[in-house]
């Protein structure tokens, strides 16, 4: 009994901290999503009105689709590249430490700074990208002004910044795999491809699940790069859900509606995570 009491006492500060920092704000957001809450006026409970409005808000639907495309493509490409790099660099070789360390540089740069760097690279007048395109095709390309190119350009920035994250997790996973099955496969004369498909991938599946989930959840809430690079434009080509939530709450002062958007995004992300987790579990 005394031990139990001590355990609760020791855990209480952390539990209270978590409650105050995560559960309460989440609960408050949920409550706000059922209210008409505008600056300077007391919040008024309006039931499901905000969610009803959301169902008819084509701009929000479009932002969810953009977010989904961004997240799925960025996470997918980052996974493939990260895995390829991890397989390539898993062995010891001269300067492997330096090379591995330099690969993670993009990840440690603040997202806003990344946005500024790429804004310069994409600049139609003096940017590197436009310069190369002009040398190759004779015409400059205005990447961020193009409704076709702007979203892929943002995805490329995310891939550049976050592929190292995938690489690190997958490399750690690969290096922690038991060596016996691989040695047995080699003795049996299995090809590299067969070893990869039938041993490495299945054994790495739990690590892949974690890496993909973490990156996907992060990609769903992308904000900084979009804010710095395009502000959701041109038109609404890169208007992701988080940007729309931010604008609705803080620029347009519609806190209730913004909270409803955030709740909807949260539900979408939860559904996506569940689907991914089930897909991975199902294939084990």
């Amino acid at each position, binding site marked *: 009994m005394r031990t139990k009491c001590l355990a609760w006492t020791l855990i209480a500060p952390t539990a209270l901290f978590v409650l105050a920092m995560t559960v309460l704000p989440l609960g408050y957001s949920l409550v706000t999503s059922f209210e008409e809450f505008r*600056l300077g006026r007391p919040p008024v409970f309006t039931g499901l009105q905000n969610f009803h409005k959301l169902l008819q808000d084509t701009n929000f639907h479009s932002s969810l689709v953009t977010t989904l495309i961004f997240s799925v493509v960025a996470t997918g490409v980052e996974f493939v590249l990260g895995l390829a790099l991890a397989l390539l660099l898993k062995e010891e070789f001269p300067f492997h430490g330096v090379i591995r360390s330099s690969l993670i540089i993009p990840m440690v740069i603040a997202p806003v700074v990344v946005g500024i760097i790429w804004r310069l690279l*994409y600049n139609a*007048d003096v940017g590197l990208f436009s310069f190369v395109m002009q040398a190759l095709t004779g015409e400059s390309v*205005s990447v961020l*002004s193009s409704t076709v190119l702007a979203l892929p350009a943002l995805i490329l920035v995310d891939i550049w910044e976050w592929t190292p994250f995938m690489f690190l997790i997958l490399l750690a996973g690969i290096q922690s795999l038991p060596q016996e099955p691989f040695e047995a496969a080699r003795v049996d004369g299995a090809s590299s491809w067969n070893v990869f498909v039938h041993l490495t991938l299945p054994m790495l599946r739990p690590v892949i699940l974690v890496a993909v989930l973490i990156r996907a959840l992060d990609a769903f809430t992308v904000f900084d790069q979009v804010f710095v690079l395009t502000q959701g*434009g*041109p*038109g609404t080509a890169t208007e992701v859900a988080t940007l729309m939530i931010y604008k609705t709450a803080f620029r347009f002062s519609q806190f209730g509606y913004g909270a409803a958007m955030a709740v909807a995004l949260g539900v979408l992300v939860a559904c996506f995570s569940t689907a991914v987790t089930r897909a991975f579990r199902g294939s084990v």
Partner: protein
Amino acid sequence: MIRRQFLRDSLGAATATALAGCGNKDQRVQLTFGSYADPGLDILKDEFLPEFEKTTGIGTEWVEADFSGWLQKALNDGETKAGAFDIYVMDDLWVPRFAGARYLANLDELGFQTDEDFLTPALDLGYWPPKTGLRQPGIDPKAKPILYSLPLVSDVQLLFYRRDIFGDSPPSTWDDISRVARQKSNPAKRQYGWVTRGVKGNPIMNSFFVLLHDFGGTEFGENWKVTFNSPQAVEALEFYLSLLPYEPEGIAEFDSDQEGETLLQGNAFAATIWTGWCRQTDDPIRSRVVNKIGFAVPPRKVNRVAKLGLFMAGIAAAAPHKTEALEFLKWFSRSDIQIRFARAGGIPFKMSAFKDQEARRSSRWLDAILGAMTLGIPSPRTSDWSKVEDILGTELNRALLDKGNARQHLDAAAAEATAFLKSAGYHAD
């Protein structure tokens, strides 16, 4: 024994240090300013706040964030009445939101007295409800305007033009701008007749605003009926789009920084830019067109207007040091301080400072700013303008990408804005 002695001595030393620290602690009142980062505020921060401290004995602390970050902090402070800040530095566009939500203290009640030396268009921005024009739904049409904030730094969009291209007299009409752009632009040599902001939302709207009004258009008519798709507005947008061939590639992604840099690097002949860029044009480190840029009120079509965008200061309703905050506002708006502010390179908000010979000599753009301030009009005074601006700014950006379809885009924006305004309680018919 030695260890006990060591612990005792250490404890004694730590306590003595702590007490000494307490004793030395500055006991004077500390006034906390919250602001967004902007070079236009540097002179105030670096030269005038230290002087205020020295003169009054009141300490100051300047807390700043980027524009959006500060808006969030300020809204949070205002809503929760936390009292973390004494003075909010605001974009003039924020005044309807902050005053309407009662985040600001009533300066009339606190005893602030205005005088005749204030520039009227600048001072009027601090009142809520607005002294003139439409009033937001829910506000008594007969309610007396109350002073909630004061100008801090004047800012207005000027026409920046190249004197080596246009000559010493500024282009007086939009047709002059168009004609010179057509005749002298040379995109192959990166010489552009015009440069503007094209990013969706506020940036492109800031650029279009002057054209809209100069061509005789407005944002709203009676009862907040949307009028920015009127024939005059369509003509204004068509003119705006007609300048595209004489502008840099990728203008749809240009914000004020790229617009200003294009001009400073000698690649553009003219632009309507905020006054914060004036000083940089003559800075050889930043500019390749030192002394080649002239400043004037934006050109005329049917009307001649300039867009106001002042830095305002208001005392937080929950400010812990209201008296001292009021003292700062009184001190900084004194005419003699404003004259010295102008002489130091700041953009004042009092007529005497604009007329001061020494200030005019050191800042050759002051006359143009005064002219523009006199003709200046602000964004519509409603806390919902940001949403309407976003809707219109998105369609303007689309028109830029289409390089046409002005009417179609303005109609689309008008329909969406009308629906929004009606849902927010405006009559809008």
